[in-house]
């Protein structure tokens, strides 16, 4: 018998890295223009065997898209695991607490106001943060500290914001298509600008969440027992929620609404490795990236040459998974 605590092992990291590398290669290689693997590796290691056109497609179209997909997927999965930890709710998701509805409203306001496309992500970011702030405020004035109150406040805020968004949409039917294409999520990029735009937020959000990995394990005992162990429960919750929201808002700002990643990925990892956030968080970051890159490949190829919104792909996989989680967590009770 090994008397070691449950920790991330090198074996797990290896599997994670291998999966991620596989997904990246898939994302780079699959597309309407054929680019051979050997040439891609050559390009990355400095030798030039590709035509100028192929090289451009690789470095301006495919690579930034794959990197952005990886970053967004990583953040959504990490944030999902973090929300599930602080709220002790297996169904918590980055889109809970009004993130999605706030971002949707922000983007809609920007689009209907005729803002340039560069302003849409910023408006979405502001909307997402405002949505969470409203949920938090409402949850607090409701008086109870219980996480259920907060989640119900999230539902109320989301309904309200969505109602406003729908109203605006109906008033400006000429931009309906544009609003919907944003809401359904997409990873189409214009080079590396989106990547550099979100990277700082994702780094800060991701690092803060990962640093709290042991705290999330303590929090799984509930507020009272964690508090009795000397943990400042409310501060931990505030830090982790703020970090997860910041990261999610940044991800949503550039990718639109991509649902279910934050539920599918952490849960699949939990099923295989057990309950410790020491394992769940780092693996969620790796597999979240691999998952979204792969989902994006599917979005690009299923209806090729047309493109399916990636949010449709993740929802198609995620909704049945959500039901599965709902059923198994009911059994556990």
């Amino acid at each position, binding site marked *: *018998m090994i*008397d*070691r*605590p449950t920790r991330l092992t090198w074996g797990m990291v290896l599997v994670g890295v291998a999966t991620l590398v596989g997904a990246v290669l898939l994302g780079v290689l699959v597309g309407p223009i054929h680019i051979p693997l050997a040439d891609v590796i050559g390009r990355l290691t400095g030798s030039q065997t590709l035509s100028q056109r192929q090289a451009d497609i690789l470095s301006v179209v495919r690579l930034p898209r794959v990197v952005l997909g990886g970053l967004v997927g990583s953040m959504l999965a990490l944030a999902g695991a973090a929300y599930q930890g602080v709220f002790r709710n297996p169904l918590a998701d980055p889109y809970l607490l009004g993130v999605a509805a706030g971002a949707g409203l922000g983007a809609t306001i920007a689009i209907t106001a005729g803002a340039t496309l560069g302003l849409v992500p910023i408006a979405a970011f502001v909307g997402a943060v405002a949505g969470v702030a409203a949920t938090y405020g409402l949850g607090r004035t409701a008086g109870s500290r219980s996480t259920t109150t907060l989640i119900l406040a999230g539902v109320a805020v989301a309904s309200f914001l969505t109602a406003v968004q729908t109203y605006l949409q109906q008033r400006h039917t000429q931009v309906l298509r544009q609003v919907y294409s944003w809401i359904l999520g997409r990873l189409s990029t214009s080079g590396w600008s989106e990547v550099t735009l979100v990277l700082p937020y994702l780094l800060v959000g991701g690092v803060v969440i990962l640093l709290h990995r042991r705290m999330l394990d303590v929090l*799984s005992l509930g507020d009272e027992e964690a508090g*009795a*162990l000397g*943990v400042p429960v409310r501060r931990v919750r505030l830090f982790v929620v703020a970090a997860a929201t910041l990261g999610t808002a940044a991800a949503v700002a550039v990718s639109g609404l991509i649902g279910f990643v934050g539920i599918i990925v952490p849960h699949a990892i939990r099923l295989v490795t057990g*309950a410790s956030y020491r394992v769940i968080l780092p693996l969620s970051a790796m597999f979240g990236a691999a998952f979204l890159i792969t989902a994006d490949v599917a979005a690009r190829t299923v209806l090729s040459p047309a493109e399916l919104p990636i949010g449709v792909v993740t929802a198609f996989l995620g909704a049945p998974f959500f039901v599965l989680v709902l059923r198994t967590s009911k059994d556990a009770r």
Partner: protein
Amino acid sequence: MTGLTISQLRVAFGDTVVLKGVDMGVAPGEWLGLIGPNGAGKTTMLRAIHGTIPSAGSVTFEGRSIAALPGPARARRAAFVPQRPSAPPEMRVLDYVLLGRTPHIPYLAVEGRHDVEVALEALHSLDMWAFSQRRLGELSGGEFQQIVLARALAQEASLLLLDEPTSALDIGNQLQVLGVIDRLRREHSLTIVSAMHDLTLAAQFCDRLVLLADGSIAANGPPPEVLRAPLISRHYGATVRILEDGHGGLVVAPLRQNGRSSTR
């Protein structure tokens, strides 16, 4: 006195006063049992001693005010075990016991080799080493209660606050777990305050009993002084008979109010 000293401890939730200025002391190494009917304020008292709910008055342990200490320092001195500790079913026993090391580990740091050794030693003290890789969901109620004690032990606090530590167990497990607590407090010189539901077990294991009623102390002394039939009857609203067990201990036997009804 260097043990636990409580003076004029008062707790109110809104307009409801739950503790009305309680004074009592617990000597180092002593096991004090808090008894009293439901709603008498036993759990509130334990929480107020631990400083996790706001209270007026003072609680000092080893000469220092517990409430004035920051969270981790408080948790290094006093461990609190609630009546129904949460048990994430997927969590492994060793990981669970390691959570007891939390007050010894800086906020964002992770545990070191020493912490793992302390956790394993705590499991060893309870003869539960063999369970270290089991999941909490696989344990019986009695086994889990001992793992909870191992976690409290890993906390290395010298004051143990237990809220009805055996209320969910059958009598065999109750005796075993209380026996373990008694052995641990002697081996590790712990001071114990426990809320007790079962008066016979309280009489058999505690050095001293405090009877709480309506937020005040109704009696305070060794079990034979507190467990007197009229006193218990008055505060619990139950007819009881106090019997001697033949080994210097007492048994509190509840009696049916109007005698046994005749069977038809």
